[in-house]
């Protein structure tokens, strides 16, 4: 009987909504944006590139639009995860190796910004990246001092700005697991490595890095999956010109009033994420060592 609360939650909050999404995705849109319940694969075909309005005048043709959007989202998720690891690892290393009484303070510094609403923090980035924003203002001032010519750099509303925003948003989710696994490493291991004559670089490559991998793995899962479905950053920092699969889905439920296509796109996104995560965890595990260890 102990399992039943879990079962109720699983069925009520996971299985039933998923089934509903699936049923709707096989339906058809009515002219007012309602759902006609039927069985058609048209929404999936459309996602995969089957099109009936072609530039060439042919009856049907291949239209890569939605595949391109999916591909762009996956690429951005990989890029974000890569840069997040690159930034989070040194930071976590620094925190884990600092004096114990300072560690909590540093961790707080990572966590406290998260207490502010995320959208407000993105607006702060908008002010930083604007044509007449903080960075351009500062560089312009510097150039003025040195007597150099300066034209403001266009940063906001570009794909680069979206990447910056994504990396910023998910950085703490990588720092915390890496920190946890680094902090666990017994100091005597470093001493042993040094005693046996290992160069600090070798100690890092052969002791620290392998032992902290579970943190990187757990962090990657925490970062990659939400990045795939996010849409607020690309809306605000990309000037609505960068369409990711998250934006696509959101638009189907609102502006396009096509819940059937939106449901199909949600399921495809979910399956894709599952596949990537499956192969990833098959190779690296879930990073459970840091949970169980």
């Amino acid at each position: 009987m102990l399992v039943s609360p879990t079962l109720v939650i699983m069925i009520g909050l996971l299985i039933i909504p998923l089934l509903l999404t699936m049923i709707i995705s096989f339906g058809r849109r009515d002219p007012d944006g309602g759902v006609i319940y039927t069985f058609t694969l048209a929404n999936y075909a459309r996602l995969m590139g089957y099109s009936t309005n072609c530039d060439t005048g042919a009856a049907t043709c291949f239209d890569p639009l939605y595949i391109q959007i999916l591909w762009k989202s996956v690429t951005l998720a990989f890029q974000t995860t890569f840069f997040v690891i690159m930034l989070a690892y040194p930071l976590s290393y620094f925190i884990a190796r600092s004096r114990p009484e300072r560690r909590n303070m540093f961790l707080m510094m990572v966590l406290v910004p998260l207490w502010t609403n995320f959208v407000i923090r993105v607006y702060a980035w908008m002010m930083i990246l604007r044509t007449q924003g903080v960075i351009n203002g500062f560089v312009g001032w510097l150039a003025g001092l040195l007597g150099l010519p300066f034209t403001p750099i266009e940063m906001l509303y570009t794909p680069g700005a979206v990447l910056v925003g994504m990396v910023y948003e998910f950085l703490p989710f990588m720092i915390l697991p890496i920190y946890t696994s680094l902090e666990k490493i017994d100091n005597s291991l470093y001493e042993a490595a040094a005693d046996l004559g290992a160069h600090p670089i070798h100690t890092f490559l052969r002791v620290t890095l392998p032992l902290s991998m579970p943190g990187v793995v757990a962090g990657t899962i925490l970062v990659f999956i939400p990045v795939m479905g996010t849409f607020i950053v690309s809306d605000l920092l990309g000037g609505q010109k960068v369409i990711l699969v998250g934006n696509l889905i959101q638009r189907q439920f609102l502006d396009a009033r096509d819940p059937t296509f939106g449901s199909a796109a949600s399921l495809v996104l979910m399956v894709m994420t599952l596949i990537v995560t499956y192969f990833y965890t098959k190779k690296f595990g879930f990073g459970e060592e840091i949970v169980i260890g």
Partner: protein
Amino acid sequence: MKSKIWTIVSMLLLGAMVLSACGSAAPEASTDGEAFTTSTGFVCPEPKNKMEVTSKELNLFVWTEYIPVEWKECYEHVYGVTINHDEYSSNEEMYAKLSSGSSAYDLVQPTDYIVALMIRNNLLQKLDKSKLSIMGDLDPKYMNLPFDPGNEYTLPYEGGLDAIVYNSEKVSAPTSYADLWKPEYAGKIVLLDDSRVVIGMTLLTLGYDVNTTDEAQLEEAKAKLAELIPNVKLFDSNSPKTALIAGDVDLGVVWTGEAYTADQENAAFEFAYPSEGTIIWQDNYAIPVNAPHTDAVYAWINYTMQGDMFFLMLRDFPYLNPVTTAMEFAKANHPDIYEPFANSNITNPPAEAVTAAHQITDVGDATTLYDKIWTEVKGE
């Protein structure tokens, strides 16, 4: 050690949730004739038609920032009704909530094109005109429009135009939507993030109807619109004025109210009514079909739409104002609000711009086609 990371993660998630608890005592209905002053210093006028209200609550579902704060305080004071206030930032959001069966709301503010859709899907109730004492104060120009003939379901709230605003110190003056394609505006334009408005304006430059469902015309518009994208720096329907004022862009197609605010910040902003005719819209008051507090909502409509209350809209949301008594009241009593409003060609457009304007209507199945064009043009 076991659950350290998950403890941290869950703490972090908890921390991200901001809990706001607002405890407010039920307001007392006024009994004496003594005037009530709001927290902003506005003296509440007497309701011209004080109605019998037994409900204790009124649930508004309105656009973000679209109700003067004084209205709520005055109404709560006069009628002893607690106002619950929910907001939306797009018609689609409101429509999605109502059509999924939410029946808690007493008042919504749908825009023209979505009204017809809501009526067709039985989401609105017919207005009982015998309870509306302000009908005679409404300007017939804004009444009896195609989306609701005879105003059976809606009353006009405010309207506006989507015309071109530009910084006259930085760029030359555009005179038509077609001018936006000029290479000199490359990377300098902000457009509303609204597929119907942007595709509609492209259709106008090609000489087609803004509400066309003809696939060939729409394909042509798509190709034309793709050429405009390099000129567009961003799409924004939340606050397009911000990018204009901050200098990120120098011209844009935005709502009149946004353009007016930009102009107040920086007088270099000018407004141009495109030669193709602008796109015009109108927001309305409407009552959802299952509204639980109809007595309170009729009292709200009558009270807020009387001239000495509705003139506050000129101050806060300077769009086209359909309440004639509000205009007269502002002219006679608040020239500081009325004069800038009446003298600006942004808020008070020339009559020919209004008559030449095009209204967007729902296009049914073609909505998916518009959305696909939009996704395609922006996604490339």
